[in-house]
């Protein structure tokens, strides 16, 4: 009898707690696997939610100071923005993660999570999180924290994960267990030496599938300053982003050809070599986008915004680097060959000086000159000037047309000519 009452009270308390904690229900994760900041995949951060409006403002990244500021997309936006701006302000002035995140406590119902490879990570304001630390001897500690300020100290390997269910989520009520399980999984993966970006992908997969807080959002690689940008964010106000547990694209494992959903539904095999296509899920795409691998090259394209030029150039530079190393002459030759073949259209030939190679960071910048007025290939080098050709061409066309007219009226013309002579 007494026990029954206690259970009822417990249920009531849980319901109350859930109702109170409805603001800013989102998943925010910061993972630091290399606190020295040397590993290019040593720190990552990401946000997603069941709710709408998970724009890039929910996973802001500083490219120069290497920190991220995460928040929820919903809730009263003015105090949220004020908290974000205050946090960024503090971080730009060299504050530690905990000093910066404490900015959130001055705004009620707001949560801000922040972190960077060398400044540690922290979450402040209204939250339900686990702080995971992994010692060098492999001990994993996962501490539940809610509200106030929670810190992962600088120089410590570990992670912070915040997760709450949004109202209306069909998997409402799963946040508690998923938060704990994901925290433990992150801890184990950090111990086993996975890069932070891959852990972020795995954690997002688990959260998206099991707790339903699945719409992007996106993530950042804080050391190499890579971001998923608007890959998964909503395209309009008050809509949700891309579901992180769904198929994102299909890719050919042998030649690298790929196609994005929904068009990918029509493809089962690669149109070039017929191999079965591999399905890439959104969480894989996120990890792929953020992870820097030892053989990948960072390609930047300047001088043209034409569609497809960046992607083609990336492939060409990759190919050239694999074959000839970081040699600007070889890269220029490869690009010029592609222009000749018609694989790369709308740009003029490049010279080795138009290619900026930084071997230490595996970065290649290509400065193109776009062709005017929708031309697809560069102008021809002919010995005769183009105006002469133009005039001769027009005269020939005219003579040809006159000949046709003469032939059509041939008999009548000959007749009248003969008559006149008589």
């Amino acid at each position, binding site marked *: 009898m007494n026990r029954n009452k206690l259970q009822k009270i417990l249920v009531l308390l849980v319901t109350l707690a859930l109702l109170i904690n409805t603001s800013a229900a989102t998943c925010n994760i910061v993972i630091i696997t290399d606190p020295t900041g040397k590993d290019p995949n040593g720190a990552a951060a990401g946000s997603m939610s069941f709710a709408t*409006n998970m*724009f*890039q*403002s*929910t996973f*802001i*990244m*500083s*490219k*120069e*100071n290497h920190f991220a500021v995460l928040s929820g*997309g919903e809730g*009263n*936006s*003015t105090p949220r*923005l*004020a908290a*974000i*701006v205050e946090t*960024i*302000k503090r971080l730009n*002035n060299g504050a530690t993660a905990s000093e910066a995140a404490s900015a959130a406590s001055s705004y009620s119902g707001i949560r801000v999570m922040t972190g960077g490879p060398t400044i540690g990570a922290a979450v402040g304001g209204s939250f339900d999180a686990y702080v995971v630390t992994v010692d060098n001897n492999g001990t994993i500690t996962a501490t539940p924290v809610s509200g106030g300020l929670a810190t992962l100290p600088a120089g410590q390997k570990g992670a912070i994960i915040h997760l709450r269910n949004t109202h209306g989520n069909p998997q409402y009520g799963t946040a508690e267990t998923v938060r704990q399980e994901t925290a433990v999984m992150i801890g184990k993966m950090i111990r086993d030496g996975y890069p932070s970006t891959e852990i972020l992908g795995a954690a997002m997969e688990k959260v998206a599938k099991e707790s339903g807080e699945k719409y992007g959002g996106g993530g950042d690689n804080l050391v190499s300053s890579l*971001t998923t*940008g*608007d890959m998964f*964010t909503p395209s309009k106000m008050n809509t949700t982003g891309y579901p992180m547990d769904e198929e994102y694209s299909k890719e050919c494992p042998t030649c690298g050809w790929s196609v994005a959903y929904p068009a990918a539904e029509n493809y089962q095999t690669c149109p070039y070599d017929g191999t079965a296509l591999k399905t890439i899920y959104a969480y894989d795409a996120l990890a792929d986008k953020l992870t820097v691998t030892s053989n990948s090259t960072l390609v930047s394209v*300047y*001088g*043209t*915004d*034409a569609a497809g030029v960046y992607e083609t150039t990336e492939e060409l530079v990759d190919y050239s680097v694999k074959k000839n190393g970081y040699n600007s002459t070889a890269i220029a030759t490869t690009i010029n060959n592609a222009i000749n073949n018609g694989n790369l259209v709308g740009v003029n030939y490049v010279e080795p000086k138009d290619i900026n190679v930084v071997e230490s960071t595996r970065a290649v910048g290509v400065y*193109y*000159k*776009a*062709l*005017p*007025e929708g031309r697809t*290939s560069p*102008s*021809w080098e*002919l010995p005769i000037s*183009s105006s*002469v*050709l*133009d005039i*001769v*061409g*027009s*005269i*020939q*066309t*005219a*003579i*040809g*047309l006159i*000949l*046709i007219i*003469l*032939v059509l009226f*041939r008999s009548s013309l000959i007749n009248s000519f003969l008559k006149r002579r008589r």
Partner: protein
Amino acid sequence: MFIKVRRDTLIILMLAFILITSGRLMSYMSYASSNGTENGVAISGVIVKGNDIVPTESIKTNIANVGFRSGSYIQGDTLITSKRKVPLNEALENARQAAMLSTLPGTTVAPIKAVDVKLDKNTGILTVNVVEDFSTVQVNQTSG
């Protein structure tokens, strides 16, 4: 044969055909070998420098909205877009203003405080240098 054509008629027609084809081909060659700058220099790209937190894409979109986008071109001191003609110095000032209005995506926070816009008239490349400053950002307290 249903239609009777005399052989010399056929030869003349053939000659006319060859003349017209080669004439058209030459016109195309003259088009292909000209460098196409007689109609102005096209805006070939926008390079954004100095932004830290505001994504490059946001700034590029704003710059494109004031006319510096693919399809626009410069003729003398005028920028000609698909919508209208603008004097170049006015267009550059517009671009400067537009870059200042770039926000964090999804918010009204505009942290860009100073912008320098340079246009290379020979290549059509626009370089935008921006300075971000979060210490002076005002968050509008009235808008929800």
